[in-house]
C-alpha cells in the first residue's frame, strides 16, 4: 500500500507534465497545421500572405518594444519598492492594496486607465473648462498612441502587483532585512546595498515569473485592444482580428502570425536573459569596486514614491471612475461628475450575477485546488526522490505561458470537440488547469524549494516519516506561499476568457466572459459594474492568503513576513 502511494507520488511530475504537454501540443498542432496549408493546399502561402501585410514590421516592433519596456519597467519599479520602501507608510498601503490590485481584470484596468487619460477623461474634465478653457475635449492622442506608451503604462500597472506578490512570497528566504542593514553599516546606500546583498538571491526566485510577465506583455490582447495603437495594432491583436475574420480565409495567415509571435517571444526571452547577464556583470563590477551609491537614494526614493503613488492612483482612480460610471446617468464633457445617477445597470445585471459568480467561483476554486495538489505532489516527489527537474521539463511547464493563447486554443477546441468533451464545466476546468497550473507551480516552487532543508533533517532525526514532515512541518510553515499560490490560481482561472469561451462553447459563462463580451461594446457603465464584481472573487482569495496565516500564526514571530 505504502509502496503504491510512493510510486504514485513519484509519477506526479511526469503526470503533471503530460497534463501540460498533451493539450498544448495537440492545440498547437491543430493551429499550426493551417499555417503550412495542411488540410488544404500545403505550402508557404500563409507566410507569404503574412509578409505581404504592410503593417508587419510595425506590429512586430510594437510587440517587442511594449513587451520588453513594460516588463523592464515593472521589474524595476517592483525592485525599487522592495529596496527602498519597507518600513514606510507607503509600503503598508502597497501591501494592503496588493490583493485588490492583482484581482482586477486586465480589461477593467485598461478601461479605467483609458477613461482617466483620454482627452475627454477625468483628468481633463477636472481641469476644464476653468483651467484649460476647453468646453469640448482637445484633439490629443493620449490614448492608442503609435508608440504604445499608454499600453506600456497599463501593463506596468497590472504587472507590478504580480511581481510584487511573487517577490514577497520569496523574500522571507533571502534574509533581506539583515543583509540590507549589514550593507548599510558598510556605508552602502539603501538601494545599492540591497542590489548587492539581496537582489541576486531574490531574482533567482522571481526569474520565471519575470519571463511569464514578458511573454504575457507581448501577447496580451484585451489590454492592447483598449490602450494600444491601432494603425497597426500589436501582432497579438492582429492575430486575434485575423482569427475572428468571418471569411475564415485569414486563418492560415493568423496561424503563420501565431508562429511568428511564438518566435518573437522566444527571441525576447533570449534578449532578456542576455540583459540579466549584463546587469549581473555591472552589479558584480560595482560591488567589487566597492561603489557605495549612497547618494543614489536621494534620487531614487522620491522617484519610487512618485511612481508607486502614480500606479496606485491610476488604477484606483480609474476603477473609481468605472464604479461611478456604473451608476451614472447622463455624464457629458466637461462635467467632473455625472449630472444624473441611476441604478439601472445594476438592476439589469443583478439576476445574472449570482449565477455567474457562483459558477466562476466554483470553477476557480476547483481548478486552483487541483493545481495546488499537483504542484505540491510534484515538489514533494522532487524532494523525496531527489529528482531534479530537467530544463526540458521546466520548458514544458512554461509552454502554456509562452505560447500565445490565440495560437493553440482553436486547435484545442477542435480536439475537445472531436472527443465530445466541450461545453461542460468539467472541460472548461480542464482547459483552465493548463493555464492555472504553471502559475500555481511558479508561485509555489521557489518558496517551497527555498525551505530550510535542515528542518526536514531534524524532523527525520526525530523519527518523523516523510508524510509527517510534509503535513506537520513543511505545509504549515509554508502556509502563506501555499495560500498565495491558491489565490493566484483562483485569480488566473477567474481571468480566463478565450479558454472559457472556446472550450465552454458558450454554455459555460463566467463573470469574465460576460464582462469581456460587454466590454467589447465599450459601454463604461456595464463594464464598470462587471469589473467591480469580477475583482471581488480573486480579491477575497488574496486577502485570505494574507490574513489567514497572520491570524493562525499571530503569536509566532518567526512566521512573519520579512
Amino acid at each position, binding site marked *: 500500500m505504502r509502496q503504491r502511494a510512493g510510486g504514485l507520488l513519484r509519477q506526479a511530475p511526469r503526470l503533471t507534465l503530460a497534463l501540460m504537454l498533451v493539450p498544448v501540443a495537440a492545440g498547437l498542432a491543430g493551429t499550426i497545421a493551417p499555417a503550412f496549408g495542411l488540410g488544404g493546399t500545403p505550402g508557404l502561402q500563409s507566410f507569404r500572405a503574412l509578409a505581404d501585410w504592410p503593417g508587419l514590421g510595425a506590429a512586430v516592433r510594437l510587440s517587442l518594444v511594449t513587451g520588453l519596456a513594460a516588463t523592464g519597467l515593472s521589474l524595476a519599479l517592483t525592485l525599487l519598492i522592495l529596496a527602498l520602501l519597507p518600513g514606510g507608510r507607503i509600503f503598508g498601503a502597497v501591501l494592503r492594496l496588493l490583493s485588490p490590485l492583482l484581482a482586477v481584470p486586465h480589461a477593467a484596468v485598461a478601461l479605467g486607465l483609458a477613461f482617466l487619460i483620454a482627452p475627454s477623461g477625468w483628468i481633463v474634465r477636472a481641469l476644464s473648462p476653468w483651467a484649460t478653457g476647453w468646453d469640448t475635449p482637445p484633439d490629443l492622442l493620449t490614448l492608442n498612441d503609435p508608440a504604445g506608451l499608454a499600453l506600456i503604462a497599463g501593463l506596468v500597472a497590472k504587472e507590478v502587483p504580480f511581481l510584487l506578490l511573487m517577490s514577497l512570497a520569496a523574500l522571507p528566504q533571502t534574509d533581506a532585512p539583515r543583509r540590507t542593514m549589514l550593507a548599510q553599516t558598510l556605508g552602502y546606500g539603501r538601494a545599492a546595498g540591497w542590489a548587492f546583498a539581496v537582489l541576486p538571491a531574490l531574482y533567482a526566485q522571481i526569474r520565471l515569473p519575470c519571463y511569464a510577465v514578458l511573454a504575457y506583455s507581448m501577447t496580451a490582447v484585451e489590454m492592447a485592444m483598449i490602450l494600444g495603437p491601432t494603425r497597426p495594432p500589436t501582432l497579438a491583436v492582429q492575430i486575434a482580428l485575423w482569427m475572428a475574420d468571418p471569411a475564415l480565409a485569414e486563418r492560415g495567415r493568423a496561424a503563420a502570425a501565431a508562429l511568428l509571435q511564438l518566435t518573437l517571444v522566444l527571441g525576447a526571452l533570449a534578449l532578456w536573459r542576455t540583459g540579466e547577464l549584463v546587469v549581473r556583470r555591472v552589479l558584480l563590477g560595482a560591488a567589487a569596486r566597492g561603489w557605495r551609491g549612497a547618494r543614489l537614494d536621494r534620487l531614487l526614493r522620491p522617484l519610487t514614491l512618485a511612481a508607486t503613488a502614480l500606479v496606485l492612483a491610476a488604477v484606483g482612480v480609474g476603477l473609481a471612475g468605472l464604479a461611478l460610471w456604473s451608476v451614472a446617468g447622463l455624464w457629458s464633457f466637461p462635467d467632473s461628475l455625472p449630472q444624473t445617477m441611476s441604478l439601472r445597470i445594476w438592476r439589469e445585471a443583478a439576476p445574472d450575477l449570482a449565477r455567474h459568480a457562483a459558477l466562476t467561483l466554483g470553477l476557480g476554486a476547483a481548478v486552483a485546488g487541483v493545481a495546488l495538489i499537483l504542484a505540491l505532489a510534484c515538489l514533494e516527489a522532487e524532494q523525496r526522490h531527489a529528482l531534479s527537474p530537467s530544463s526540458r521539463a521546466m520548458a514544458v511547464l512554461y509552454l502554456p505561458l509562452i505560447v500565445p493563447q490565440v495560437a493553440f486554443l482553436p486547435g484545442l477546441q477542435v480536439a475537445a470537440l472531436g472527443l465530445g468533451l466541450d461545453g461542460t464545466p468539467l472541460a472548461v476546468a480542464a482547459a483552465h488547469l493548463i493555464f492555472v497550473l504553471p502559475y500555481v507551480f511558479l508561485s509555489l516552487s521557489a518558496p517551497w524549494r527555498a525551505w*530550510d532543508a535542515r528542518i526536514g*533533517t531534524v524532523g527525520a*532525526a*526525530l523519527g518523523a516519516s516523510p508524510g509527517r514532515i510534509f503535513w*506537520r512541518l513543511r505545509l504549515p*510553515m509554508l502556509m502563506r506561499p501555499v495560500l498565495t499560490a491558491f489565490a493566484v490560481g483562483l485569480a488566473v482561472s477567474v481571468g480566463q476568457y478565450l479558454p472559457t469561451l472556446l472550450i465552454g462553447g458558450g454554455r459555460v459563462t463566467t463573470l469574465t466572459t460576460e464582462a469581456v463580451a460587454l466590454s467589447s461594446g465599450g459601454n463604461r457603465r456595464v463594464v464598470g459594474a462587471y469589473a467591480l464584481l469580477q475583482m471581488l472573487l480573486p480579491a477575497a482569495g488574496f486577502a485570505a492568503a494574507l490574513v489567514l496565516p497572520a491570524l493562525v500564526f499571530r503569536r509566532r514571530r*518567526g*512566521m512573519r513576513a520579512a
Partner: protein
Amino acid sequence: MRGLRLDRLRVMRGGTLLVDLDLDVAPGEVLTIMGPSGSGKSTALAAIMGTLGPGVRQSGRIWLDGRDVTGLPTRERRIGLLFQEDVLFPHLSVAGNLGFGLPAGVRGAERRARIETALEQADLAGFADRDPATLSGGQRARVALLRTLLAEPAALLLDEPFSRLDATLRAQIRTFVLERARQKGLPVILVSHDPEDAAAAGGRVVAPAEGRGSTPEGT
C-alpha cells in the same frame, strides 16, 4: 553490542575521498570529528544521518547497538541531531516543538507530563506555550536538545552546536548537553572546527578522512 560503529565508512566524490572513518563510539563516549571548513565534516555527518545527496558514492556500514542502519532512512536510524543553529520549528510553540520529538505512542496526559518534566529539568518551567522566536539563544539551544532527547535516540550527532553562542553560554550549554548524553549513555559524535570544543568534550579527535586527504580510488 552497544554503541555506534562506523565500519570502513567511505564517501567518494569522483576520485576524491571525502570521508574515511573506521571506528567505534561506546555508550557515553564523545568522539570529535574535527577539521577546517570543507574538510568533509558535513559529508561525514550526512552519511551518518543518511541524508547524502546525489553525486557521491558511499561504502562501508554503520552499526548502532548491533543494528545495521546503513540502508535505513533517517527517521528509522534513531540518531538524534543538533545543528549549529537550534532549528526550532517556528510555527509551533515550545511544547509543540518538544511534542514533535515524542514518540507517537506516548499519549494524552503522559505526553504533557513528559514535556513539563523535560522543561523543568532544563530550568524552563512555564515555557510550554511560548513562541520559540521570543526565547534567548541559550533557551533555544536547550529546547532543541530537549526535543532531540525526547525522541529517545540511540546516539547523538552534534553539528557545531555551540559555535553560535557567546563564551559563557557556550560552556554552560556544552556541559548541559554532554552531561545529558552521558547520563543517558548515548554514544556522541561531535563535529566541530573548534579545538576548544574538542578539548572540552574530552574524547578522541579524528579527521573526517583520517588525514589521508585525497587519494585515487583503490590505492
